[in-house]
Structures are given as structure tokens and as C-alpha cells.
């Protein structure tokens, strides 16, 4: 049987190949995951990616994968029909010089979990960057969602680290959630092995 091709870093010039439009190609994905007309609660997510000394990464790429407002994924392994063909569920945003990424999307609905459980609304995240040799998977959950308490994945995370996976509403900006990603140090973000 063939064996896996190993992962390598995206390197510092990731924008050339992974930021669409950089070479004139039509953009089919980017930081806007949901069109304005899509059903659901429209939100924005903004955060910074920080290294072990708290220095922002200007050369990281955040990718997101999420369900629609009813918790359905645009993928045959889900199979439930979607309300809109325009929703594909994928987002990608490089960090800027201050290490900031910004997405515009909808809050996903609860998603089926293992053994008839239900997963709380969440967005699946990959962190890629110069100096990151393999994809770092994490998740964004939403502060105040009562479903978090019964989420089967959060339950696997040590209690004192769960807060690193919770996006917080910005009190000054309605609809904006803040979610920083810390690769190391105090409050290091939880990354998953699936």
C-alpha cells in the first residue's frame, strides 16, 4: 500500500499560492464564509495568532470549516440537503502584519456527535504558518451557548484549558466574537489529534 506524503510548512510565502486572487485567479473562497442573504445569525470572528513570546504571527493562515445554521455540512458524508447552494462552509484568511485574522460567517447550528450525542455549535479550525510543520487543528466554540456544557469534545479537554476554545462576544461591537490563538505559553490554545 502507498505510504503517506509527509507534511511540510507553508513557509513565509504562503500568500502567493494560498491567497486567491494573488495571481489573477477567480476567488472561490476567502474570509467571507456566508453571503449576506444566507439564513442564520450573521457574526464576525476576529483574533490574533501569537507565538510563545506573545509576538503576533504576520505569516499564518487560518482555515475554517463549519456547518450551516441547522448544523448541516456541505459534504456528502453529511448528506442532509442545505438551504442554499451558495453555502460551502469553508473559509480562509491569512493574518495581517499585526497577526490578525477576520472572518464573516454565520453561527453554525448544533452538529450530530458520536453515539447519538449532539455537539455544541462550533467552527473547525486549521492553523498553518511559517514554522508550523503540520496543520494544527482546533475549534471555536461560542461563549454563553448552553450546549457547551454537554459537548462531547469539550468534555475531553482538561477543564482548565477549555476556555482557550471559547470565542467571546465583544461588548462594544454587536455580532463580533474574539478568538485569539496562542501557539504556546500560558493559555496555550488546545490543539486536537483526530
Amino acid at each position, binding site marked *: 500500500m502507498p505510504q503517506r*506524503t509527509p507534511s511540510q510548512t507553508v513557509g513565509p510565502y*504562503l500568500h502567493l499560492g494560498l491567497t486567491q486572487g494573488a495571481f489573477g485567479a477567480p476567488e472561490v473562497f476567502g474570509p467571507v464564509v456566508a453571503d449576506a442573504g444566507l439564513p442564520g445569525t450573521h457574526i464576525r470572528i476576529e483574533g490574533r495568532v501569537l507565538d*510563545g513570546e506573545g509576538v503576533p504571527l504576520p505569516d499564518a493562515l487560518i482555515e475554517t470549516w463549519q456547518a450551516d445554521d441547522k448544523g448541516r455540512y456541505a459534504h456528502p458524508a453529511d448528506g442532509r440537503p442545505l438551504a442554499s447552494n451558495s453555502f460551502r462552509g469553508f473559509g480562509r484568511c491569512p493574518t495581517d502584519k499585526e497577526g490578525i485574522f477576520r472572518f464573516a460567517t454565520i453561527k453554525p447550528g448544533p*452538529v450530530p*456527535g458520536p453515539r447519538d450525542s449532539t455537539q455544541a455549535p462550533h467552527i473547525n479550525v486549521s492553523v498553518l504558518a511559517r514554522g508550523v510543520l*503540520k496543520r494544527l487543528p482546533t475549534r471555536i466554540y461560542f461563549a454563553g451557548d448552553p450546549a457547551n456544557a454537554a459537548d462531547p469534545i469539550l468534555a*475531553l479537554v482538561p477543564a482548565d484549558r477549555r476556555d482557550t476554545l471559547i470565542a467571546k462576544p465583544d461588548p462594544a461591537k454587536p455580532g463580533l466574537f474574539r478568538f485569539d490563538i496562542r501557539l504556546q505559553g500560558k493559555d496555550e490554545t488546545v490543539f486536537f489529534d483526530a
Partner: protein
Amino acid sequence: MNDIYSRTGNAADPPSLSPDYRSTVLRAPTRPLVLIPQTLSEITGPIYGHADVLPGEADLTKQHAGEPQGERIIVQGRVLDEAGRAVPNTLVEIWQCNAAGRYIHETDQHPAPLDPNFTGAGRVVTDERGHYQFTTIKPGAYPWRNHPNAWRPAHIHLSLFGPSFLTRLVTQMYFPGDPLFPFDPIFNSVTDARARARMICRFDLETTRPEWALGYIFDIVLRGPAATPPDSD
């Protein structure tokens, strides 16, 4: 809950912390990864295919008015999973420096010439058999500041989705016999020599087009299915 995707092949990947590649030191997680089951969130993933890519995007030598400088090459191969099955209709994004070892990127300050006829980025989608092909210029080696007199071996970056969030792969394709291999901490971040060899394409005379371009084959293997557990009774 049984795994849908194999975990054993993950051993081919480099560790996140590979101190000879200095940028990993402050960017590799220090806490253990949290082991989780493969839920609907993991076994689904973005699907992008032929409708999202224009036919010309697979030829990096024809994106400008003139011909780029350098050695024209054809790279082709198949995208497979660990069970040997083709991965059809999956998006492959590619990017690279030019023949002189320079990227069109504001942070690349290597004093080698830019090529007005070469951008160094393209996209291609695998066909029903998992096959892909693109035409480009052989990239040059270039210096970087990881350590004194550090040079990257010639490489092309490739990014693939595959059928799920778990099959996502970003890698680099290297060229056979590169004298810089022993000195490159990114290539050598993959600790198993056999796994490193799977990042090196091979020259192929059949792919080579007479009077036009050298041909290379590079098969890419994504994460595949977990072994089926034996029936219990």
C-alpha cells in the same frame, strides 16, 4: 466510535518542534494534543473541483505576455489515499519561486532577479483517476536566514484538500539528487529517511516532451481509511 481515517500514517509527519528549523521553537505547541474521536465535523471537509478552476491555471509558463526564464518542466502524478485508491476531483494549489530562486513576495529580499513573465502560482484539479499535471519552470535554490549559509533545496509547495477535514495536506515537492538535502532543516524535519524520499519527485522520460520540457512524476498520498476492525461475535 471507530475511526474512519487511519491514524498510523501520521507518524510520517514531522514533529511540530524541530529545533534545527528555528521558527518552530516559539511556534510548536508545548502541551499534549487532545485526542478526539472522528466526528461528522472531521470526516466532512471543503469540496472544490473543476468548476472552481480555469483550465489555464495549471500552466505557470503562460500567465504573462512572454516566456519565463528557466528550465521548463512538466510535473504529473496521482493523488492517492493510503489504501491506494484514487482521490478524484480534488483541488491542488501550487506555489514556488522562479528559476533564480526569487519569490514574487514583498518579504522576499533575496537579491536575485524577479521574472516579469513568471508569478509562480497555479491550481489544478485531479481527474476521475486522481491524476493531475502542471507545467512550470524548475525553481531555483535560495538562501534564508535560519542559520549561517542556509539554502533551501529547490522545491514546489503543494496544498491539497482531499475528501475531508482530516485529509488536508500542505507539503513540498523536492527534486532528485539535490546536494542541499543534508543541510536543510525543513526537509530533515521529517525524521524517517523513507518518508523524506516520498517528498522527492522522479525524472520520467515518458513524461518528458521532446524539444520542449523535462518531465517529473510526483505521486501524493493522503490520509486513508482506518483498517476495518474484525467482526466480533
